[in-house]
C-alpha cells in the first residue's frame, strides 16, 4: 500500500473511533435526559413525600448447650429505642442533626424515665461509621416506658422501638471462662469499604463465643418500609430474611461443672474433669471467675479495670492458660518411664534415709525421718522423693522427657481454646539454649519429682490422669460435641480423637495404678482425704513451691480417677497457696466426687 493511502486508511479509523465515542456520549446524554428530565419528577416526589426506611432484622445468635441440653448461653428480647438518623437529617451541617437528636433525646427522657446511654460523641461516631443502622439511645425499656411511648404525642418521625436479641447467660458465672462473652462489634475500616448493613452488631470477644462467632452469628436480614410524612408505614415487605446462627453443643455436664466450680470457689485455682474413655471435657473451671452477664452489651469500665488489675486474674482461664510445676503428681510418669526403660522393676527397692545425695549435696525427702525400704507401690503411696530421684537417675532424663511427651506434656492439648498453653518438658538441649548450661544429675532428680523447669497446665494433668485411667490412650480433650441448626439437625459432629497410645506394658501400668490406688484407699495414703464411700478411686497428690525466696508459697495438686476398675471420671485440681496437695486439695476433691456420685443433697451436705 502506498504511504499516503496508509495514512488515509488510518485517519478514517480515527474518525470511526471519534464517531463511536460521540455516539456513546450522546447515548449518555440520552440516559441523563431520561433520568433527570423525563422521569425527574418521580424522584422529586419520592424525596418529598416519603422516605424509605431500611429496617435491620438482626439474626438470632446461636445458643450454647451442655451435653444434657441445658442452655448455657441464651438470647433475650431487649426493647430498645432507636433513632434513624437518615430520616432525622436536618439540612446543612451534621451539627444541626446532632443538635436535633439531642433535643429529641431530652424530650424522650421524660417518657422513658431515665437518661440515655449515649453521649454527643456517640452520635458523632454513629454518623461517621454506621449511619444506616439505627442509633440505639435506650436499651432494656420496661413495659411502662413502652406504653408511655406508644401513647405519646411527641414527634416520633425517625424514632422507633427496636427489638434486639440480647445475649444472656442463664447460669451467670457457670463456665464463664469457657463461654466467654459477646460485645459490641468493632467495624474495621476494611469492612466500611463494602456495605456494613448486614454486619453483626455484637460479636464474640472471648472463649467459645469468639471461637464459634462465625457459625453462631448468623446473618442479619432487612426489610424496606415506606414511611410518609405522618410516620405511617405503607408497605412492609420482607426483603431478606435473617438467617439464624447455629447452636453449639458442648461435652460439658453443667451439673459437674457447677460442682467443680463450688469446689474451688473460695481459692484461686483450677479443676478439670474429663471422661477418660472419650476425652470429653465434663467440667473445666478456673477461680476466681466473672459474670458474663455484666459484660453485655458493654463492659462497664470500672468493672473491666477491676477484673484486669486483680492479682488473682479472674479473666484468665487457669485450667488451660496457666502453667504450674506439677510436683509429685508427675511421679506416675517418672515411674512408667523407669519401668519402661527396664532400669527398674516394680520390685526394685530403695532405702530412703530422708535425703538423697546429689554429688556432695543432699536433696531432702519431704519426710526427713526417711521412709526406710520402699518399693514402687509404697514409693507412690508415700510420694517418696528419694525413691523417685533414684529411679529417675537410673533411667535418665531423656527417658522421662520422652514419657512426659507421650502423655501430651510440653505441647498444646488441642482443646481449641485461646491461650492453650504448651507448658515445658525440659531436656538437656533446652537447658543449653535457655540457660547456656549443662544438664546435671540434680536436674534429673528435680525432674523426676516434678520440680525444676517442668511446667504443665491443669488440663494437661487431667489428660495424664485420664490416660492412666483408661490404660494408656491419650485422647484430645473434646469440648464441643457438635453444631446444630435451629431445628436441632446436626450440622457438624466432632469425633473422638485418639492422639496416641502410650507405649507401656500393661504390667507397668498396673503397678503404677496400684500405687495410685493406695494413695487414696490405704489408711496411710497421702490422698486419703479425697476418699468417698462405696467408690474405689486412685490418685496422686502433689505440692510444688512457688514465689519469691522470702515468701515461698505452695501449689497443692491432686489428680484422681474413679471408679478404679472402670474409670468414668479423670480429675485434676490445683489450688494456690495450699498447705499440701493431700490436705488442701484432698478434701475439695472429696466434696466434688461426693457430688458427682450424688452422695450430697442440693446444698452440698453429705447424707447419712
Amino acid at each position, binding site marked *: 500500500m502506498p504511504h499516503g493511502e496508509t495514512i488515509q486508511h488510518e485517519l478514517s479509523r480515527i474518525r470511526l473511533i471519534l464517531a463511536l465515542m460521540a455516539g456513546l456520549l450522546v447515548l449518555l446524554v440520552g440516559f*441523563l435526559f431520561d433520568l433527570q428530565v423525563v422521569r425527574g419528577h418521580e424522584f422529586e416526589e419520592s424525596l418529598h413525600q416519603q422516605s424509605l426506611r431500611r429496617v435491620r432484622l438482626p439474626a438470632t445468635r446461636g445458643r450454647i448447650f451442655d451435653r444434657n441440653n441445658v442452655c448455657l448461653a441464651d438470647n433475650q428480647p431487649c426493647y430498645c429505642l432507636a433513632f434513624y438518623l437518615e430520616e432525622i437529617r436536618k439540612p446543612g451541617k451534621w451539627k444541626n442533626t446532632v443538635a436535633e437528636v439531642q433535643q429529641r433525646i431530652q424530650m424522650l427522657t421524660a417518657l422513658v424515665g431515665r437518661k440515655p446511654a449515649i453521649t454527643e460523641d456517640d452520635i458523632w461516631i454513629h454518623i461517621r461509621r454506621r449511619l444506616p443502622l439505627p442509633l440505639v439511645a435506650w436499651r432494656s425499656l420496661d413495659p411502662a416506658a413502652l406504653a408511655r411511648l406508644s401513647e405519646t404525642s411527641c414527634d416520633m418521625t425517625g424514632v422507633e422501638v427496636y427489638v434486639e436479641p440480647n445475649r444472656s447467660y442463664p447460669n451467670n458465672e457457670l463456665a464463664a471462662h469457657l463461654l466467654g462473652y459477646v460485645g459490641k462489634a468493632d467495624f474495621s475500616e*476494611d469492612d466500611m469499604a463494602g456495605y456494613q448493613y448486614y454486619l453483626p452488631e455484637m460479636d464474640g470477644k472471648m472463649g467459645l463465643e469468639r471461637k464459634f462467632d462465625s457459625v453462631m452469628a448468623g446473618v442479619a436480614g*432487612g426489610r424496606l418500609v415506606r414511611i410518609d410524612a405522618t410516620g405511617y408505614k405503607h408497605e412492609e415487605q420482607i426483603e431478606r430474611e435473617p438467617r439464624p446462627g447455629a447452636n453449639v453443643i458442648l461435652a460439658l455436664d453443667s451439673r459437674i461443672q457447677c460442682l467443680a466450680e463450688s469446689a474451688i470457689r473460695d481459692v484461686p485455682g483450677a479443676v478439670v474433669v474429663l471422661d477418660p474413655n472419650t476425652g470429653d471435657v465434663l467440667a473445666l473451671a478456673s477461680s476466681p471467675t466473672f459474670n458474663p452477664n455484666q459484660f453485655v452489651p458493654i463492659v462497664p469500665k470500672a468493672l473491666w479495670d477491676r477484673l484486669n488489675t486483680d492479682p488473682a486474674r479472674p479473666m484468665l482461664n487457669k485450667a488451660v492458660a496457666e502453667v504450674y510445676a506439677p510436683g509429685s503428681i508427675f511421679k506416675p510418669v517418672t515411674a512408667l518411664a523407669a519401668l519402661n526403660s527396664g532400669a527398674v522393676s516394680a520390685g526394685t527397692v530403695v532405702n530412703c534415709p530422708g535425703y538423697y545425695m546429689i554429688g556432695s549435696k543432699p536433696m531432702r525427702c519431704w519426710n526427713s525421718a526417711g521412709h526406710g525400704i520402699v518399693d514402687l507401690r509404697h514409693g507412690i503411696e508415700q510420694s517418696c522423693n528419694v525413691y523417685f530421684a533414684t529411679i529417675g537417675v537410673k533411667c535418665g532424663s531423656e527417658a522421662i522427657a520422652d514419657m512426659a511427651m507421650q502423655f501430651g506434656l510440653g505441647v498444646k492439648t488441642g482443646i481449641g481454646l485461646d491461650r492453650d498453653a504448651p507448658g515445658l518438658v525440659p531436656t538437656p538441649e533446652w537447658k543449653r539454649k535457655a540457660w547456656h548450661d549443662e544438664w546435671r544429675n540434680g536436674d534429673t532428680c528435680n525432674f523426676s519429682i516434678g520440680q525444676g523447669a517442668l511446667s504443665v497446665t491443669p488440663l494437661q494433668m487431667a489428660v495424664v490422669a485420664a490416660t492412666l485411667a483408661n490404660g494408656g490412650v491419650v485422647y484430645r480433650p473434646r469440648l464441643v460435641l457438635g453444631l446444630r441448626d435451629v431445628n436441632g439437625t446436626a450440622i457438624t459432629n466432632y469425633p473422638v480423637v485418639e492422639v496416641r497410645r502410650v507405649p507401656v506394658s500393661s504390667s507397668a501400668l498396673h503397678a503404677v495404678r496400684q500405687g495410685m490406688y493406695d494413695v487414696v484407699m490405704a489408711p496411710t495414703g497421702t490422698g486419703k482425704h479425697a476418699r468417698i464411700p462405696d467408690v474405689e478411686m486412685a490418685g496422686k497428690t502433689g505440692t510444688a513451691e512457688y514465689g519469691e525466696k522470702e515468701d515461698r508459697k505452695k501449689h497443692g495438686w491432686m489428680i484422681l480417677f474413679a471408679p478404679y476398675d472402670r474409670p468414668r471420671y479423670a480429675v485434676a485440681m490445683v489450688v494456690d497457696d495450699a498447705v499440701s496437695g493431700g490436705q488442701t486439695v484432698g478434701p475439695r476433691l472429696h466434696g466434688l466426687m461426693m457430688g458427682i456420685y450424688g452422695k450430697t443433697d442440693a446444698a452440698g451436705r453429705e447424707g447419712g
Partner: protein
Amino acid sequence: MSEGLSNLGLLRRMNWIMLVAVIGLIVTGVFFIYSATSLREDSTSDLFKKQILWALAGLVCYLGTAMMDYRKLRDVAWGFYVMALVLLVAVLFFGTRIYGAKRWLMFLGVGIQPSEIAKLAVILLGACLLSPPAEKFDRLPSLWKLFMLAGIPMLLVIKEPDLGSGLVFLPMVAAMLYAAGAAVKPLAMVIGGGVLAVMLVLAAVALPERLGMTPEHQETFFQTIHLSDYQRQRIEVFLQPGKDPMGSGWNKRQSEIAVGSGGLTGKGFLKGTQNILGFLPRTVAPTDFIFSVISEEKGFVGSAAVVVLYGILAVCGLYAAMVARDKMGRVLCVGIVTMIFTHAFVNMAMTIGVLPVVGIPLPLVSYGGTFMVITLFALGLIQSVYVRRQGL
C-alpha cells in the same frame, strides 16, 4: 536557551479550545468537591484546597509536556514502562491498604497510585512500538506482543485489587492497535475474547447453574480471577437490581435518586438534599461519585455540560491525532484520548446506574492527586503533538 524560547513560542499554537475545556472541568471539580465535603466537619473538608494545588502542579506539567517534543519520549518509553512495573510490584508489597485494597504507595507523605502511572507508560510504549522510525508501516509488532506488554501491568493492577482500573487497559490498547492500522480480524478476535471473558465472569456471578458450576467451583473460579466479594455484590446488583435492596442496591438506587431529583436545572450549588455523603461510603463521594453531586445540584443542564466538555476533549484530542506529524503522535493521541474517555464514560454511566459500580475516577473532576497530574501530563502530550502538527 534559544531552544527553550522557541519551544515557548510553540505554545501559541496550542489548541486553546482544548485548554479551556480542561480548565472548565478542573474548576467544576474543585467547586463540587467543595460542595461534597463542605457539610462534613472532619478532615475531608479541605480537600478542595488540596485539589487546587494538585491541579496547579498538573497544569505546570501540562505546559511543560506541551513544550517538550514528544518524539524524545522514544528514548525513555521502555525505562518508564519498567519503572511503572516496579512501582506496581512495590505496591503489592509496601502499598498502603486503604479500604481493603493496596492501591497507594506513600512517598514523602504523598499517596501515589502506580496504576495510573502504568496506564500512561503502556500508552507511551505502545505509541513507540506501533510506529517504527524506519517507516516500515506494514511491519507491525504482533498484536500479542503489545497485549502481553499491556497485560502484565493490567494483571498487577487487578491484583491490587482494582478491577475497574485494570479493565481500562483493554479499550486503550485496542484503540491504539486499531488506529495504528492493525488487521481488524485478529484484533476483533482478541477483543471478542476479552468480551467473552467478561461475559463469563458475569455469568459465573449471576447464573452459575447455567454454566454447570457448583458453589465450590464458583468459589474456586472467583479466587482464581481475584474477584472479591464486594465486586461480586456490585455485579449482582447491576444484573439483578432487586436482589439486595438494603445493601449495595440501596446505594445504587440512592445515587439514581440523587441524579434524578436534580431535574432540569438542579437544586442549586450546595443545596443537594439527597446529600450524597449520607449513603455512600464516605471516601467515594468526592472521588468516584462526584458526578452524582454535580447532577443533583446542577441538574440535566450541569451534567450534560460536563458530558459536552468531555466530548470537546475527545474531538480536540482525536483532531490532534489526525493532524499529527507522524504515526507516533497519532497513536499517542488516540491512546490518551481513549484512556480519558473510558474513565469518564464508565464513571458517569455507573453513577446513573447504566454500568455496575466500579471504582474509577472521573478525570480532572474527581478528587485525586496522581490521576490529576497524570491526566494533565497526558493531555500536555496531546498539545505537544498538536503544536508540531504537519503543514506548519
